[in-house]
């Protein structure tokens, strides 16, 4: 089979070029889809979820200088730091900023004795054992794991909470690396 140069050119124009264009566009289309998937999974992960009451750590921690364990009362005593009981909030907010929308919501919860269901920002899977108490005792600062919470209007997740994250710090600090420490 032999082709004349003209026929060769026709093949190039009608078959090869469109085929290449199609392949290239499809390739980039797949890449864009993958990008969109990454974006959606990031969005769904909700690293800074909206809270039922927009509680600002900025005012309470940085302006009022409340220490963390004033509200997270169990942090140096138990596995969980715990969310503050409403009485704690109301000790101030029966008198302060009572006209604001967010504080009215807070007061309604208090009157109806309905605890606020805060959306969790940090949580570990069931199979991992973690305790705040040990870390606070070992003088690991809250900010090493939670960032500068006092500067966040809305709490956002700073550490990845992946296994590598825990283990890197344990290695540097000379804490236990035994599997059984974290997997019980």
């Amino acid at each position, binding site marked *: 089979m032999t082709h004349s140069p003209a026929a060769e050119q026709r093949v190039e124009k009608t078959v090869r070029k469109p085929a290449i264009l199609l392949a290239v566009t499809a390739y*980039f289309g797949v890449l864009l889809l993958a990008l969109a998937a990454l974006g959606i999974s990031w969005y769904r992960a909700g690293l800074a979820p909206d809270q039922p009451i927009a509680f600002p750590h900025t005012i309470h921690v940085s*302006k009022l200088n409340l220490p963390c364990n004033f509200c997270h009362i169990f942090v140096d005593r138990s596995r969980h730091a715990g969310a503050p009981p409403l009485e704690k909030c109301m000790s101030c907010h029966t008198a302060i900023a009572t006209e604001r929308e967010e504080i009215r919501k807070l007061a309604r919860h208090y009157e109806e004795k309905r605890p606020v269901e805060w959306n969790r920002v940090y949580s570990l899977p069931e199979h991992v054992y973690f305790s705040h108490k040990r870390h606070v005792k070992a003088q690991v600062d809250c900010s090493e794991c939670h960032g500068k919470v006092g500067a966040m209007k809305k709490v956002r997740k700073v550490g990845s909470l992946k296994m590598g994250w825990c283990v890197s710090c344990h290695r540097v600090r000379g804490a236990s690396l035994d599997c059984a420490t974290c997997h019980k």
Partner: protein
Amino acid sequence: MVSLGNLQPLSPQFYLLLRHGLFLVLFLHLPFLGLLIGGSAVSLLLNFLGKEKRDPSYLRFSQELMGTVLMSKSALFMFGLVPPLLVWFIYARVLFDASPLPWQFWVVILAVLLSGFALLSSYRSARGRALDLSPMSAATGAAGLLAVILAVFLFSAGYGILFNPGKLPLLQKQVRFFLSWHGVVKFLLFLAFFFGMTGGAILLLCGRPAEGDEGAEAAYRELVQRFGANLAILATLVLPVFLLLDLVTLPDIALSAEVFVSSAVVVLLSLAACLTLFLSDRKGEGGPGARVAFLFVLIFLVILLRDDAAVGNAYQDQIAFLHMQAPVAELVHADEKHREKPAAADRVAGDAGKVVFEKSCAGCHRFDIRVVGPPLNEVVPKYAGDAEKLKGFIRNPVKVNPDLPSMPRLGLPEEEIDAVARYLIEKAKAGGSP
């Protein structure tokens, strides 16, 4: 020892300026290094191919390319060595909490870069002298190339840290934490860009006609254009993949909608560059060279803007923190200035007390009216003769007034408690508001 990390903390505006400055410097520096790396690598490859195929046009291309990409010594200095020094300075100031990368790190990068430049310069002059290159000269070129690539790798690893402030405390304890997958991906992304740039530059600048047989000249041009186009096409296909990997390895706190949108823009620009290369018929003047080179510069600009946004995300809390600290920092500063002047001991204590008050108490207390706590003019006079008792209360507050919430225990150091207690007593005695 020089430790830039010990410099004063920054004001938020200055921080922002430095951060953008960092990316501006990179925008000037990396394309330059990219041409150098891409050009030398391709020149060495052509040299090898020319010898294998016994085709002198490859050797001629190799020679022409090397003459195009490697600039004069002063340009090398300006674009190659000054920027890393600037980056060093800016870097140390941006990561103000810590000085994660010791100055030795940057000295190593500079030394490696410098030796790479020297070796490549020597390769270039050998390359320019004759088509036939001695194996020794080729080896010199390869060594120089490897050195510059090594410097870029080290730099990328350090650059990767910028996106992950959570790692800084680890890094300060163990140097090996400066290696990360994210740093490696950044390196690969840069390499892809380098070769794309080089492809564009070849299309734009190489294949200049010379005296001689017209047919041979056309064949040479064809070779150069084909080579440049293939290189650029390869880069447009690979670069977006590394960009996706970069997104995967970027720490969560650096991500935001802007980062995803600008990544999509980079993918689309790569598509545009790729189609430009396929659709142009690559013949004659006005080939795709200028457009492709421009698109690659644009791609790099968007990548840097994206990285700038990502670093901003990663440090957003620290910046908010600086903003909040600024007024207090000013007060402390003013206080320090006061202290330089000779003054009565009490007056000094009063100023220090004022600073502590503004920092730790003013959120809840004023002298004249009730805020969270009671107006201090009403409650402090009962402590007038007894600073110790007041200090005891501040150290460890007990319930006083059932109509008010309890005052939290603030955990202040003893000097601050002492200063603020004296300040309160004096101030309340005067009866004025601050």
